[in-house]
């Protein structure tokens, strides 16, 4: 048992931290907030390309594909460090599509896509959700007709965050209407510049956009099929165990700023941080952040030992995102009336950050598997309780 990083791990992360501190700009942070944390914006791409030169975007990948042959532990450490500095959280290429290609993609696909992903040159957007297929993903209907040397795709996706700044769509489409729904799904890579694709914004209550994506006779070359036809659902489900995690430091900076605010703000001659109730709340949040951190690194520990974190990743995502919301609520409690002031208001503390994250955090327990779905998984796969 050991609850600290190895020296070479600490040394590496110290270098990553130095790099980030030297290269992160307010513009990147602003862009990250405006995009809802997804990678693909201009500022982020510029930054990530520099970071990726060191192999730090995909360190666990083989060197031939732009990685460092390093560990999941290092990958998780770097992701959390980036999250702390309010860099993008969601890299579909590096952490979803890329690993799936590495595991089950053809040699041709690996050679075409992996290095550009590892270098931060291209980004993917997940193309899973549809109006009638959210938690029940197998209900997806977008049709990909097999035309021999290509697929012809027609249909619609919704809540596809990222698509407006990504290069490729990581599309889950229906290639068979016979038999059980989950056995007729394929994953394919679609160039988002293809003729026939229309992207329409859906504005969220957090101010950032997600998208509806319409496919009208879009041609997808056969070589862009990931793995085998009709096996997509299995690839997807298998991948979720590995990609479902939420970096616990994503809301840590916000928390630290709230703590700092409480120490420096005086009401009736006493600092807010001396109020017993506020002390209890802030201590509780610190404890929950530590618990999240341990759940997070347990995943990396398991992955490096080729253990499958089938319920553990659900537990981490569920817990860490609920902590994130509690941190936002704590911020609102501490700021009181001031909490409602938006960025730009001259009286807004923390540049309106609490107001923004309070709104933005609503989605954390919904996307990438709702907390309810995660609890079902924990109960069914973690405890063996029977499906309903």
């Amino acid at each position, binding site marked *: *048992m*050991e609850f600290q*990083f190895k020296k070479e791990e600490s040394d590496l992360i110290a270098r990553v931290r130095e790099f980030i501190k030297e290269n992160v700009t307010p513009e990147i942070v602003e862009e990250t907030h405006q995009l809802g944390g997804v990678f693909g914006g201009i500022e982020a791409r510029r930054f990530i390309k520099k970071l990726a030169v060191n192999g730090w975007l995909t360190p666990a990948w083989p060197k031939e594909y732009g990685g460092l042959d390093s560990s999941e532990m290092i990958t998780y450490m770097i992701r959390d460090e980036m999250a702390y500095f309010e860099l993008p959280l969601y890299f579909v290429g590096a952490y979803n599509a890329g690993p799936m290609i590495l595991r089950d993609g053809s040699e041709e696909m690996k050679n075409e896509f992996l290095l550009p992903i590892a270098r931060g040159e291209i980004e993917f957007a997940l193309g899973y959700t549809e109006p009638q297929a959210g938690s029940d993903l197998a209900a997806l209907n977008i049709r990909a007709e097999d035309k021999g040397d290509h697929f012809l795709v027609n249909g619609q996706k919704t809540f596809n965050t990222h698509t407006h700044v990504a290069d490729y769509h990581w599309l889950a489409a229906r290639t068979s209407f016979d038999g059980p729904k989950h056995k007729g799904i394929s994953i394919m890579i679609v160039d988002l510049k293809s003729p026939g694709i229309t992207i329409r914004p859906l504005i969220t209550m957090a101010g950032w956009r997600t998208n509806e994506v319409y496919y009208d006779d879009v041609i997808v070359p056969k070589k862009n099929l990931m793995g085998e036809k009709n096996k997509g659902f299995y690839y997807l489900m298998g991948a979720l165990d590995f990609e479902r995690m939420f970096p616990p430091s994503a809301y840590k900076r916000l928390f630290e700023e709230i703590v700092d605010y409480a120490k420096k703000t005086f009401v009736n001659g006493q600092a807010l941080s001396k109020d017993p109730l506020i*002390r209890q709340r802030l201590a509780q949040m610190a404890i929950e952040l530590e618990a999240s951190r341990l759940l997070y690194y347990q995943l990396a520990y398991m992955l490096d030992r080729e253990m499958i974190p089938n319920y553990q990743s659900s537990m981490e995502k569920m817990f860490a995102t609920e902590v994130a919301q509690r941190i936002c609520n704590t911020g609102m409690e501490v700021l009181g009336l001031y909490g409602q002031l938006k960025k730009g208001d001259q009286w807004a503390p923390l540049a309106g950050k609490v107001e923004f994250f309070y709104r933005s955090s609503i989605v954390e327990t919904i996307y990438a598997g709702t907390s309810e779905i995660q609890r*079902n998984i*924990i109960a069914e796969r*973690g405890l*063996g*309780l029977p499906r309903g």
Partner: protein
Amino acid sequence: MDFGFSEEQQILRDSAHGFLGKECPSKFVREMASDEKGYTPELWKKMSELGWMGILFPEKYGGYEGNFLDLAVLLYEMGYVCLPGPYFSTIVHGAMTILEAGNEEQKSEILPRVANGEELLTLAWTETGASYTPQGISLKAELDNGDFVLNGMKLFVPDAHVADKIICVARTGEPSGDYEQGLSLFIVGRKDPGVSVDLHNTIAGDRQCAVNLDQVRVPRRNLLGKIEMGWSVLNAVLQKASVAKCAQMIGCGQRAMDLAVPYLKEREQFGRPVGSFQAVKHHCANMLTLLETSRFITFEAAWRISEGLSFEMEASMCKAWVSDSCRQLVALAHQVMGGIGFMEEHDLHLYFRQAKAGELVFGDGRFHRELVAQQMGL
């Protein structure tokens, strides 16, 4: 980061699990709840033969030279079976304090006897203020002819009715602005003149006592640690004992889950297992989350103690989180088990009671969150 047990720890776990599963069925737990002593000398002897008393002691005191993680592993298994008896009070309250503060003479006199199973210890700390803070101590110790004379009352002293020696926290200096100054520790014999012990009647059936000290004379050689320097010892004991108690509590939580989950797979209503309903599943998912986070936060603190790293923050985070989590977990276990879990003859309430006792000793969630707040510089 390594979340796995070492091979040795795994062996200790497995053998303790097997031994205690056999020696401490719930029938035994229930019997001991109304037994005068609260433990049997037979089981105590067997445990000492396994080396469990001396698990933390250096070899020269008859110990096993294990570390705090080994103790945590053992306590987990004890919590799992709800083991009654004075192990925690003797080893954690008592022996750990002697290891922290004792001089060579005291350690070589007392510890080997503890390791052999011949001596029971405890620590008398809290008073009527029911607080683990220095302000809670007003029991006086005054010098008289070279001896100290102790006067006052202690409450919630575990197993004082069977302990051979009771370590008493007393105030030797005048209480000034800084209550941390002026505290001293004394080794008192239970049978010494002036010592009287009465049993509390507690929810968990554990043997906590009111100990009254009336002109109790303590020779200087029984001063434990430096005069007036007791608080620094107590603070370390508080932190370590808190983590030790958490190790026991996660065993308790695990057992609650092991009672509830299999039942939910078996019990049917409306033509299907009760465990197939989503509300029930979600309670179970919450239970497992409380248990796993508790497990990791406890072993992180225990590891830091074992490695000689700073642990104040982690120990208080641990006690705060586990105190609340274990209580919540067992409450959820009751909820999902329905009527049957509410019955006296079902074992779940034993863990409900144990969880509460564990939550309260050495500071509850609120107490430790305040310590965390102080560590955070708030």
